[in-house]
């Protein structure tokens, strides 16, 4: 969790307990007190720069990072199973949670969830924290090609994406403390169903939607520069992700065509060796080299399909998520501006309206701070995700060429050795 330590604390209103709760778990130490005081004074700069340089406090700093870096909740998504009812067929996934957090009654949970449940969780988290950036869910439908919903590859890709989504929530200092997240991880199927029904009613949800639409139609008037910059960045970034996604899928396609031809190539050398005498060994050798390169190519294609392709696709979805977050922030600000306008025009009820205006202005401030904090966190995650994916791809490509190199070098060596043997045994060359 690079760069996380100072900023979320800065972004959080003092009301939020979880992080400070974690801080209390640490050793009571004079230096630590200084440490936490320093943290409150800091203005988003990295911790190292403003730390007192006494060795003791350095040790505490290390401990602090270590302990908050230590994950106390582990979530996995696996084991897809098909369920058939009279009305529908659907897939459920096993969600296993292991945690030491005190809010959880037990330290291990196992439940089964379907895609709809994840969707519900995401909506609840968005409602609770409209301006925090969440990792996207895999798509509901896949438009391109005739991908069946119950195709193995589709299910595996979806499962991995769901796993990542949950893990990102679990890693998020604020989102992971949301009540509905806990319920999602721990409730039995019937419990979850009844809890879902308790959520904000249809009418109140409608009300929210109407307000949101009204706000978006109204538009925001004085959007702070930094959020406009974010929007511009996300727009550009999104286009790049779409391009990279397309390019990578095209590479996979070309590789597959190449592999197809390569598979026909080796056998011709074998066929040829059938009519030769002296050339049998080298011809068969070349055929074997080509076949082994085929296998290496297949592995390379698999790696690309399972790593870079889904990652880039996720980030295409990410940009939509981030744009939605920016829109929601705009709407909150628009609502507040509207109330301000109303206040300026009204003569009566000014007191009540003033309270409402203040509440909305606070809401805007909270939303902005949450977003600013999460923006850095999102950027950090994005950089490390993308870096990891491309580094892994480059590594795999190096590996691929190294494998092929070894194959051809060993052929060459064996041929030279055989030839030397022949010349030495007095064979005429």
């Amino acid at each position, binding site marked *: 969790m690079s760069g996380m330590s100072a900023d979320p604390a800065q972004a959080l209103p003092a009301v939020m307990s979880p992080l400070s709760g974690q801080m209390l778990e640490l050793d009571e130490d004079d230096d630590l007190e200084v440490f936490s005081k320093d943290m409150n004074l800091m203005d988003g700069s990295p911790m190292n720069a403003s730390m007192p340089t006494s060795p003791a406090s350095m040790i505490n700093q290390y401990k602090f990072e270590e302990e908050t870096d230590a994950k106390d909740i582990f979530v996995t998504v696996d084991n897809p199973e098909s369920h058939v009812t009279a009305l529908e067929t659907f897939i459920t996934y096993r969600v296993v949670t292991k945690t030491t957090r005190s809010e959880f009654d037990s330290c291990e949970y196992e439940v089964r969830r379907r895609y709809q449940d994840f969707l519900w969780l995401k909506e609840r988290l968005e409602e609770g924290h409209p301006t925090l950036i969440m990792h996207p869910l895999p798509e509901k439908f896949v438009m391109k090609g005739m991908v069946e919903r119950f195709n193995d590859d589709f299910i595996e890709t979806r499962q991995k994406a769901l796993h990542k989504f949950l893990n990102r929530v679990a890693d998020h200092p604020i989102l992971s403390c949301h009540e509905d997240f806990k319920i999602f991880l721990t409730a039995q199927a019937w419990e979850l169903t009844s809890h879902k029904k308790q959520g904000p009613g249809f009418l109140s949800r409608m009300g929210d939607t109407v307000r949101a639409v009204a706000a978006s139609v109204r538009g925001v008037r004085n959007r702070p520069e930094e959020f406009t910059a974010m929007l511009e960045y996300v727009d550009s*970034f999104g286009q*790049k992700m779409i391009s990279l996604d397309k390019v990578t899928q095209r590479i996979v396609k070309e590789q597959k065509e190449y592999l197809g031809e390569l598979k026909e190539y080796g056998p011709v050398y074998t066929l040829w060796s059938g*009519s030769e005498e002296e050339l049998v060994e080298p011809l068969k050798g070349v055929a074997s080299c080509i076949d082994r390169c085929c296998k290496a190519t297949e592995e390379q294609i698999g790696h690309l399909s399972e790593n870079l392709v889904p990652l880039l696709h996720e980030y295409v979805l990410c940009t939509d998520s981030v744009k939605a977050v920016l829109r929601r922030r705009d709407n909150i600000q628009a609502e507040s501006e509207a109330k301000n306008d109303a206040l300026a025009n009204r003569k009566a009820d000014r007191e009540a309206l003033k309270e409402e205006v203040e509440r909305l202005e606070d809401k805007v401030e909270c939303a902005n701070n949450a977003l600013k904090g999460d923006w850095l966190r999102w950027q950090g995650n994005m950089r490390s995700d*993308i*870096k990891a994916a*491309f580094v892994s791809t480059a590594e795999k490509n190096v590996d691929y060429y190294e494998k092929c*190199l070894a194959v051809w070098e060993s052929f060459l060596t064996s041929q030279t050795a055989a030839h030397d043997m022949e010349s030495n045994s007095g064979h*005429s060359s």
Partner: protein
Amino acid sequence: SLPSVRGTHVESLEKCDMAEGSCLLRKMEISVAEAEKRTGKNAVNMQETYTVYLIETSVTEGHNPVPDSLWRRYSEFELLRNYLLVTYPFIVIPPLPEKRAEFVWHKLSADNMDPDFVERRRIGLENFLLRVASHPVLSSDKIFFLFLTENGWKEAVFETGFLAKSDSRLKALNATFRVKNPDKRFSELKHYSDELQSVTSQLLRVRARVADRLYGVYKVHGNYGRVFSEWSAIEKEMGDGLQSAGHHMDAYAASVDDILEEEEHYADQLKEYLFYAEAVKAVCRKHELLQYELETASQDLASKKQQQEELAAGTVRTFSFKGMTSKLFGQETPEQREAKLKVLEEQIKEGEVTVTEKTLECEEFVKNAWKDIERFKEQKDHDLREALMSYAVMQISMCKKGIQVWTNAKECFSKM
């Protein structure tokens, strides 16, 4: 590294040492140094553009190498080769590089004027000359020497009268006939040539398709270069890493051009043996023709001898129109019979000479042909083995380039 054409020259020279008789290559360096475009009027007085090739020779005997050079068109090489085919039917005549680009994959143009094609043809023509010049029999041919050194060689070649032989040869080779007792060795050789032709053309086709696909894979990576470069403009921490990674992706995409150009040389080596297979088949067909002629002559002689017997004995052993007519129209007079016998005797004498000649011709042909076929087999095994190894070398070079590019890219990505 690839065996250069100079290398082929050296190898050919080495083989000369083992060959009987003098080898032209020992006395003279030969190369096809350049190619040039020319325009001129052709036989039907129309403007045409064609390529000429510069043949450079340098006599190495003695202390002062005397260099010489002249320009030749592809059609003149063809003329020379046709002459050799007719004059030495028992030799596997080295093939010329292809007339038109075949087994083309999409990047290569099939245009004869394409500079890459012309360059590869230049190399192929030089290879042809070196093969002939290092051949134990062909290298001492006078017409070949004139081709290399004399502008007015065409007169000499037409004076040999080879064209007349060429026509009858073509007729004979295209005619269908069946040999009663085919020579097993030649049948096997013909069968082998067919297989060699079939498998090398299949190999060339598939290789071209593989090359096409490989090209696609590499070139698509160029898009990474473009997108990374654009993307780096909006990033702070990642900008430098993306930018430099993009450069490596561009380099990767560009590297395929050289890789595939090298592979064309490998394809040319395979093509040479595809065409060599045809030359081997020509020798087999010539042998078949001689065999057939011998069988015909022997059959003719045998039937004449039988007629003689029948006439002498006065009996008709087998059904013949002669017998029928004698039965119908009465027997011949003794005088008539005497006359016929005399004619037959003459014919039999001639027939026997013919058979003897044909038998000798056949035996000579088989002896000489088989000698050259053995030489060819050794050459083929050696050359193809070298070609396969040079192919492996090319693959190794391609892999090493790939490792380098992606290692560099990985470093750039790690710095993002």
